Structure formats: structure tokens, C-alpha cells
């Protein structure tokens, strides 16, 4: 009975603490709120350029939300900048993977831009029921349960090994997702007529023409060029100013 109570407390603490800051920030500053409302008004009035500037100012304040990036993406879409529209929809999805409006508008933007999307690997497709955060938390839970079980029942090693094994699998899943096509390296082509090339010079042979809004996975940064995995399963150098990482 005692043990169960202890575990319940542990789980509560584990989930509650990371969100503490977010909970504390639920009351944004009035200036940012006003700016956000002003941007919405400008958008409704058809002043998309003004709306973009105001949304960007809110983004610059560092207080982000899925809805903010979604609205910014809509403003870029109306402005005809599909690359940045897709970039901001993707950012919204990073903050809220189950945002239905973002999902719908992102699909429309991809269709309009005829942009290329990275194909997830087979493993990523299997793991798409969870996020990297989910797997990281589950890995931590399995790890500590295994450790506690080892302390309480040192003779029952099988359960401990099973717990450690599950923790390792979940950790690996988190790692794969974090470094996969939806992970930290994901970037969106924001320039028109961008091309991936075989070398870091503008005159180098083109590997793939990348329409705005196309996804690339940045593998290495070198000066003004990024080495990236491309949607056609090849790799090439893309000008750094032609792409922008989804993750801020």
C-alpha cells in the first residue's frame, strides 16, 4: 500500500514539474496580447503584411503558442508566401501535434505550393503514435520503476531487466524521432527557386530543384550552406538563407 502511494506521488511529480513554467506563463503580458489582437484585426481587414509584422513581433517576444504560429502561417498564406506559411504551420504542429486546423491548412499549403515532403522512414511510421516527449517520459518511468523494483525485490531480476529494456527501447524511439524527418533538423525551404547542389558553390550541379515549402533535413551546417537530406532520398547542399529550421 505504501509503495503504491509512493509511485503515485512520483508520477504526479514527474508530469507536473515540466509543465510548471508553462502553467505559470498562462497569463501573457498585456502588450503581447494586445499585439496579437491587433494582428488578428489587421488580418481580418486584409492587411496581411501588417498582420505578419505584428505576429512576428509576438513571436520575437519568446511567448509562443500553436495558435500564434497557425495565425502567422495563415497570414503568410494570404500574402502568397507559401514557404513561410508552411514553416509556421509546421512550428504550430511542433507545439501541438494534434491541432486540427493546422493540419488542414498545412495540407492545403503543400498542395498549393507543390512542395516536396520528406518521406518518413519505416521506423518513424511505426512510432508515429507518440512524440519524442512521450517516449522520453515513458522511458524515464520504466527506468525508475525498474530501479525501484530492483531495490525492493533484488531477487526478481527478470522484471528489472524487462523494465530497463523497455526504458532503452523508449529512449531509442525518442532519439530516432528527435533525429528523424520531424526532428530537430527539419527545415523548410522559404526561398523561391531554391536548388540543392552537389557542392557549396552556386555553379555546382543541381541535385534537386526545391519549390518553396519543401522539407529538407539539415545534417550539417557549413558557413552559408547547409548539407541536407532531400525529399528524393538524396543529399545536397542548400543555401543557408534559402531554408529555415522549424524549431526555434
Amino acid at each position, binding site marked *: 500500500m505504501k509503495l503504491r502511494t509512493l509511485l503515485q506521488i512520483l508520477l504526479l511529480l514527474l508530469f507536473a514539474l515540466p509543465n510548471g513554467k508553462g502553467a505559470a506563463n*498562462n497569463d501573457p503580458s498585456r502588450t503581447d496580447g494586445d499585439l496579437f489582437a491587433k494582428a488578428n484585426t489587421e488580418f481580418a481587414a486584409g492587411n496581411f503584411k501588417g498582420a505578419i509584422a505584428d505576429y512576428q513581433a509576438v513571436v520575437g517576444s519568446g*511567448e*509562443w*503558442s*500553436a495558435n500564434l504560429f497557425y495565425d502567422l502561417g495563415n497570414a503568410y498564406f494570404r500574402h502568397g508566401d507559401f514557404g513561410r506559411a508552411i514553416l509556421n504551420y509546421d512550428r504550430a504542429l511542433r507545439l501541438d501535434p494534434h491541432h486540427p*486546423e493546422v493540419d488542414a491548412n498545412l495540407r492545403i499549403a503543400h498542395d498549393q505550393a507543390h512542395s516536396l515532403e520528406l518521406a518518413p522512414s519505416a521506423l518513424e511510421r511505426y512510432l508515429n503514435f507518440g512524440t*519524442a516527449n512521450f517516449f522520453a517520459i515513458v522511458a524515464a518511468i520504466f527506468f525508475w520503476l525498474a530501479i525501484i523494483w530492483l531495490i525492493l525485490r533484488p531477487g526478481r531480476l527478470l522484471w528489472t531487466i524487462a523494465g530497463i529494456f523497455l526504458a532503452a527501447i523508449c529512449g531509442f524511439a525518442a532519439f530516432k524521432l528527435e533525429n528523424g524527418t520531424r526532428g530537430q533538423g527539419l527545415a523548410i525551404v522559404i526561398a523561391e527557386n531554391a536548388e540543392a547542389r552537389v557542392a557549396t558553390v552556386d555553379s555546382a550541379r*543541381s541535385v534537386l*530543384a526545391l519549390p518553396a515549402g519543401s522539407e529538407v533535413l539539415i545534417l550539417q551546417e557549413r558557413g552559408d550552406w547547409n548539407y541536407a537530406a532531400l525529399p528524393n532520398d538524396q543529399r545536397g547542399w542548400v543555401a543557408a538563407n534559402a531554408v529555415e529550421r522549424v524549431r526555434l
Partner: protein
Amino acid sequence: MEMLRRILFSVLLAGAIAQFARGDSPKITAVLTSSDVVVGETVQLQIQIDNAGTSMKPPSDINVPGLQIHYTGESTQMTMRNFAVSSSITYSYTILPEKSGTYKIPPQSIRAGKDNLQTPELTLRVADSPRTAAGTGSNRPPSGNTQVGEDKIAFAELLVPKKVAYVGEIIPVVVRIGFNSRARVAEMAPPQVSGQGFTVQKLGEGERNLENIDGRSYVIFNYKTAISAARVGNFQIGPVEQKANILVPRRSSGTRRKPFDPFAEDPFSDPFFALPFGGLMEQREIAVKSDPVSLEVKALPAGAPPTFSGAVGSFSMTAEANPKRVQLGDPITIKAAISGRGNFDRMNAPELSDERGWHKYPPSSNFKQDDDVGISGTKTFELVVSPNEKLTSVPPLAFGYFDPVKEKYVTLHSEAVPLIVEGNAPAAPAIAPTIAATSAPPALGGQQKAQDILYQINDRGKIVSSFAPVYARKEFWLAQLFPLTLALGLMGWKVQNVRVSNRAALRAAQLQQERDELLRKLRRDQLAPREYFSDASRVVQLKAALKQTNIEPATVDAETAARVFELNAEQSERMRRLFATSDEFRYSGAGNGESALSSDGRRETLELIESLS
């Protein structure tokens, strides 16, 4: 040190000789500089023998009716790569067709050491020409347009294999600049092919050969390039004018030149040449000029296929597509390789024969040339397409070109590639646009959109300040302190428990040891009554403490023992008497006058003690 150097030199020399000695077996190749010529136009036959030995005799007389074939000389080339020495000999012949037709130049046999080498059979197609190339008064009989300057010290030659061509057709051109082998070229820029109405590709590096012409040895610089006619008409190619600085031996002062004819005498007949290293050289600038070559350029015939984009030549095409299992909208890369001979620079990517259901992206290309001037090679196109609907195959690619030999358009088709397209078409948004529909003007020049984005959301929602994954944040690792603390607490508790149980076990072991020692003493039958009863009661106390661990042995009396061991009345009475006797001996020094203990009494007492469990 000197000895070491000699050894090293000997080893290197031996290695080089060994490499040379164990060189590959001789190989022979024979090529024509052009397999399509017109009557009166010369073409070169070159027979090259690689890894050749020293004793070889070239075929001096090649007889083909309708062709004049003259042996013009040989050149030898030796190369050393990674201490591997290889040599090659090239025998050159000039062929002058006398009439049109297709000629077969039969295999020629050359004996190289123990090997008997044979050239392949070559085919030469000779076409009639309304303007049969006439001799231009060249000093070099087999060539058509040779301009020899400075009385055979140097000459320039422009070789164009065709007199009639189509617009866009690539025509190989060779510029030959020859110098008498006794002169040394000090400086010479690459020649330029002048003319209007055609484009000239950049000249490649000049190949240097030694040829024998009219009994004189010439160093020939062969510059290869290609021209492509840009419009219809009659054009003149060249002449090629070339200036060079050469070093020729200085004449001896006693020899007088004839006025106004400085080269009437052979400058190399000077006795100076008897001592080639003993005299000085003088530098001279010379200019050589080739004859121009006329070219008639015809328009491409009508009836070009829709896939024709300007490619002229002879080509073949292969194509492959990957991946072959995709989701709707996923990109598929089609690699199309077009190989052959022609104007690759004006070649566009092949097209899908059926583009319905496909979205195309701009193709990329890469050209890998097989020759020096880029006339032949392989151009690889990468086309990225994505299916908009469920399709079962990637349609064949179509590529059209004009074949100047067959004088007709040809369309190449690749094979269709089977494809599996999974997934469904993206669904239309379920929520109708609100603000966007009313307030947003058309964003893309008034184009009608198939789908429109959803409305703005005025609520900012949950605020976050980081995109980093949870495990990259310090809160996550701080949270781990709680289970860590819990684990450490549990571990401490377990250690404490173990320590406690260890103490109890130690106490029990001590009690057992004392009990066993006392029992051994009691069984020996030699103890005095006082000591015997004291030890017997102590054994009872120890056994009681071992059975019930929370009891101290010294506190056990007869009643406690009876309760712990659950004794019956008779055993309780005996136990009480045992403890009473022991107390009497302990406190009075004697047991009610008994000075000795009977053996029956000892046995009964021992049985009582041993029955306790």
C-alpha cells in the same frame, strides 16, 4: 652513404625493368577519325599498339578498291605510372575516297614479338558530294587544306569531316599545327577557329604526335573541337591562323643566305646540326594559316515530334524510377540516361508520355562526356514527379531527336515502371472558412483556389517558451530528483533492514554456540551438582531465547520456559524444580543437603532439556 644510394638506385631500376618486363600483353586498336566522309575528303586511319615491343613492321600496303590509303608515319609514346612503364606505337594512314559507297577496311595483321595482332574490320561510309573537296595546293599531298608556311618549317591544317550538315548538328573539327621536328616550339597559344553562323566549342588540350610527312619528321599538335551550325546557309569555317615562337638553330656565319628567300635552302642542312648541343638557337616568330573549309547547313525537315526539343545526333535512352511504393503526393525520382553522339548542350529532358495524374518538378541534369570535346557521352536527367492519384505505373518517358545520318526524326520511349501508390487523396477541410472567405482578397493574382485555408484563431492558447524536447529541458532532469530520492530512501531502508537482521543472526549464533557448549558439558557427567543445575537452567534460557527472539535469556524463568515451549503440567513441574534447584545451588551454595547428583537425576534433567524445541 654512396653505397646506400647505389643500392636504392639499383632497386628502383630493377623494379622499373621488372615492371616493364612483366608488362601486359600487347593490344591493338584501329580507329578512323570519321566513319562518314564525302568523296575527296580525307580521313585518318590510326593503328595503335599498346605495350608494344621494339621489332614490329606496320602494314605498308593496305589495298581497298576505291580508297587511296597512304602510310604517313608513326609516333611512339612511353608513359611511366607508379613505376609501371608502358609504351604505345601509333601508325597513321591517310585515306582518300575516290567514289561513294560503304567500304570495309579489312583486318590488318602485325606481328609483335611472339604475338600476332590483328586489327578489327572498319567500315567507312563515303557519300557523294556536289562539291567534291578539291586539292588546295597543299604541300602535303594527302591532306585537303594544308597551308605550309615558312617553307616546311610549320603548317596548319583544318580537318572538317562534313561539307553538308543540319542546323544544330555537331561536327567534329580537328586543327593540326605541325612543326618540323628540328625546330622547338617556344610559345604557342591554342588556335582559334573563326567564322560566322556556327558555334565553336572550346578547344581541348593539343595532343602532340610525331609524324613523317614527305620524308620529313613533323611534330603535330592536334586540337580537337566541334562546331554546331546555328542557322541555314553556306558558311566558311576558318581559316585558322596561328602564330608561334619557335627556336631554330642559328646559321653559321660562313653561310650566306639568298636574298629574299631565306628558306630556299633547307635550314637544317646547316653543318651546325652535326653538333646539336654545341651551338646556339635563335627565336623566330612564324605565322601559319590553314585553308578555309566551306560548309552547307540545311534546315531540319518538317514533321518534328512533340517531344523534339532540338537534339540532333544519334542517341539511346534508359530510365529507372525509385521508389516504387509511395504514398499519394510522395516524390518519385526518375533517372533517364541519354547516351550517344550529338549536341548534348541543346538537349532537354525527356517527357512523360502521359502526364495525367502527375505533378512534375523542374528536372536536373548531369553530362558525362566520353571524348575530349563533348560530342559523345551520357546525359543523365533526374525528374522528380509525384502522383496526384492512385496510379499503377510511371508512364514511359519519350525523347525525340533528329538523326542526321538517317535524315529523319526518331522518338525513343522508355518502359513503364510498375508503381504502388498508397493512401488517400487529401480530404477537403471539414470546417468552412469564415473570416478568410469574407475578408481575404485573392492572394495570387485573382486565381481561383481549389481549397481555401481555415479561419484565424483569436485565442492565443497555451503559451510555451521552448521547442526543445522535454529531455533537453532542465525541468525534466530536476524532476528526476524525486524518483532518485525515493530510490535512495528505499535503498537506505533496505540496508537498515539488512543490518538489523544481521545483528539478530549474530545474536542467535552466539546463543546457539553457548547452548551447544553447555549441552556438551552436561552430557559429560562429571559436573558438580551446583554447576550442573546452573548450566542446565542456562541451556533452558538459551533455548527459550532462540525460539522467541525478543526474549533476553537471563529473564527466562520456569514459567516463561513453560509458556515458550508449551509444556504440559508434568514437564512444567519438572522445569520449575530444575530452576528451583539451580537457584538453591546458586544462592545457598548447596541443594537441600544433596552433595551429589544421581545418574538418574542427570538423565531426567538432560531428557527434559533436550526435549525442549
